[in-house]
């Protein structure tokens, strides 16, 4: 959610029940401007809130030249002081997925431990392998995973220039009402994996500058997105059922769109049972 639209758009995503209190909103307005200046971001977004048992983390994301690649995540407890999160690497993702299973605690220095008894094949018991992961890296990996699996942008909002850079499309006028009802017109904002190769007929309608991302309708399992019209039917809202708490909003026929995550930072593994 872009920091410039923060005031009016927080009400639009509030259908989930989570909003930001007035004090935090005022603090965000000030601190995001400072973040943009200090880190030299092009845009600063309020990415969302990860609820921990003791404290909640506010996450902000700064975007650089290439929106898809130049991303930096920061976290804060009071929306005033922000700390940089490390970027998620493959090894970090592996470690976190093994070790950290429960809810976030709320303390970035908390260490999750996972003890594996590696019994040797000769019968000798080796020393237990203890994998340790700090909550800070778990947070970085979670933010990265949510962006990979559940970020949403409407079709046409981002343009890929011939040099390969992705930037905001200034002449994006919004999806029409009928377009906003189809899940095909919403894309994941991540490196395209292209699960379904489209036929030549369909490719003819697409434009390579706009349609370089994966659509939401290719997500497995089908039905993992809840598509509704809220706020007196004016706003098109998409909620992810895989990461409960991620809400995407778009006002049709206007360029306003954004997504925010407000939840406990755990993937909903029970989704196949629940549909």
């Amino acid at each position: 959610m872009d920091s410039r639209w923060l005031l009016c758009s927080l009400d639009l995503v509030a259908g989930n029940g989570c909003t930001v209190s007035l004090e935090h909103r005022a603090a965000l307005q000030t601190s995001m401007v400072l973040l943009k200046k200090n880190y030299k971001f092009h845009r600063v977004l309020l990415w969302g809130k990860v609820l921990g048992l003791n404290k909640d983390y506010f996450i902000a994301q700064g975007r650089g030249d290439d929106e898809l690649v130049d991303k930096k995540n920061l976290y804060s407890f009071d929306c005033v002081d922000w700390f940089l999160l490390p970027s998620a690497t493959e090894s970090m993702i592996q470690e976190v997925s093994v070790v950290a299973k429960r809810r976030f605690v709320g303390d970035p220095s908390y260490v999750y431990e996972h003890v594996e008894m590696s019994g040797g094949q000769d019968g000798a018991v080796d020393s237990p392998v203890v994998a340790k992961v700090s909550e800070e890296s778990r947070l970085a990996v979670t933010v990265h995973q949510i962006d990979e699996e559940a970020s949403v942008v409407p079709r046409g909002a981002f343009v890929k220039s011939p040099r390969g850079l992705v930037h905001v499309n200034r002449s994006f006028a919004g999806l029409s009402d009928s377009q906003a009802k189809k899940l095909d017109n919403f894309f994941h904002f991540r490196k395209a994996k292209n699960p379904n190769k489209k036929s030549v007929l369909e490719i003819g309608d697409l434009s390579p500058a706009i349609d370089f991302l994966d659509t939401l309708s290719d997500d497995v399992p089908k039905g993992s997105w809840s598509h509704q019209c809220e706020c007196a039917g004016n706003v098109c809202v998409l909620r992810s059922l895989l990461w409960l708490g991620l809400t995407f909003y778009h006002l049709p026929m206007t360029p306003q769109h954004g997504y925010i995550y407000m939840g406990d930072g755990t993937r909903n593994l029970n989704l196949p049972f629940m549909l």
Partner: protein
Amino acid sequence: MDAKQDESAAKLQSVRSLKALMMTNSPQSNTNLYDHLTLLLMKVMDEHPHDAVDVIEDISQDVKLTFSEEKQNFLRDFPSTTAAELLAEKQRLLFSRPEEDEQEEQLMETLYPNVREVGFYLEQAGVGLGREEMQRIFLALKQLVESQALLGCRLWGKILGTESSYIVAEAQYIEGEEEEEKNAEEVAEKEEEREAQAKENEMYPLPQSTYKPPPAVPKEALGTGANKFVYYVCKEPGHSWVKLPSVSPAQITVARLIYKFFTGRLDHQIVSYPPFPGNEANYLRAQIARISAGTQVSPKGFFRIREEEGDEEDEVVQDSSEVNPDFEGIPVFEMASLSTWVHHIQYILQQGRCTWVNLAGKTGEDSNEEGEAEEKEEPDEPEPEVGPRLLDPLSKDSEMFNVPSWSSMVSSTLTFQHAVAVQRSNRWPGAYAYACGKKFENIYVGWGLKYAGEGYSPPVPPLPQKEYASDRKEIAEALDPSLEEEQELKEALDEQRAVQEEMEDIDDEDDED
């Protein structure tokens, strides 16, 4: 000079031919490049985009679209009513004010809560549905109270669904409603009987099964226990409110075992194992009952136990509470800890009810009446189920999956004196309670599902029943005799027969002689 003139003439000629080329109409779209570029440059002149060269393709496409639309503008689209327009019509009614009863309304007691105030405090806590939406819900609650003539109602919260969501209001139970429900149930039973009779008459009588299901736990009476309040739901403020049926213990027991999203349609069939006895309206009511029992909390001292004159000495259960008029607010610092909050809704026992019912007692009586000769050893009388008592503090709530049941926080760290203390439930993510001075409120905004830890494991179907009791001799397994044994047996039998025949022959010979 001539050469230069020739060159310029040649250039002019090539320019003219290029212009002619550009002005040839394309056979498909009946426009030409020259006009298109003119329109394009006019648009750039009008709009002054600062990065025109980067988005030139989009501008070109826009020009093409508008040009083609203008050409085809003879037929107008039939204006179809969008969903937003329909909703706006309904919500317009929320804002209408009856002109006659203005003065009377001001004198009446407030039957509906001040949702604006509740929304304000919840916003401090970081919870809420947005200010305008809360205002619309406020007006919708007022409409509910007026249309149903309720004694009082409260905004319970919002349950999200995959296709649409439910806004839930909790209301006090009124006496006359019980009859309506009973009538509905009786009608349903009569219909079933008629169907069963019709089937019997048509076909030959089928063998009846001797399986008797365990006796169903009786529903709690309206106004007590899990059915203490009546719940109304609607999809959007402005739509009509639908009353949810009362909940039965069987529904609560099954709802504890399944884990399903709500779709937003009350008549949707729940496909699950164990099969849920009812449709989505019943499932919704069961989840509301569980959430209320688990997460409706109040500051200590707000409610006190209503002292009833003793009915029986055995029943120590205190199941009713009333507002304590002597309650003075508790300061915010203390409210941020768990010991100053108490549950004010009864806990639902394992059975599915709030007050325990001894089912074995009934069957025991029947068997005693029927056959006194057979004195079977009755199984040990089931012990009465006991749960946390009413008005137990939150600090007694047990941990689930190593996660404490509640997280407490204070809304503002900078302005302590005017902060709001908030309790957030970890068992039912989405349940919040806030307290500020003498005011407190509970609300639930979420998906209607309990925290399932790392993963939900669905209940396993029971083992298949054995067809025969295993200790009957006819189906006892034994090894078939081997070939040698059979031959030995045959030889032995042959010898016996031979001996017998000899004996008979000798007898015959003796007889003949």
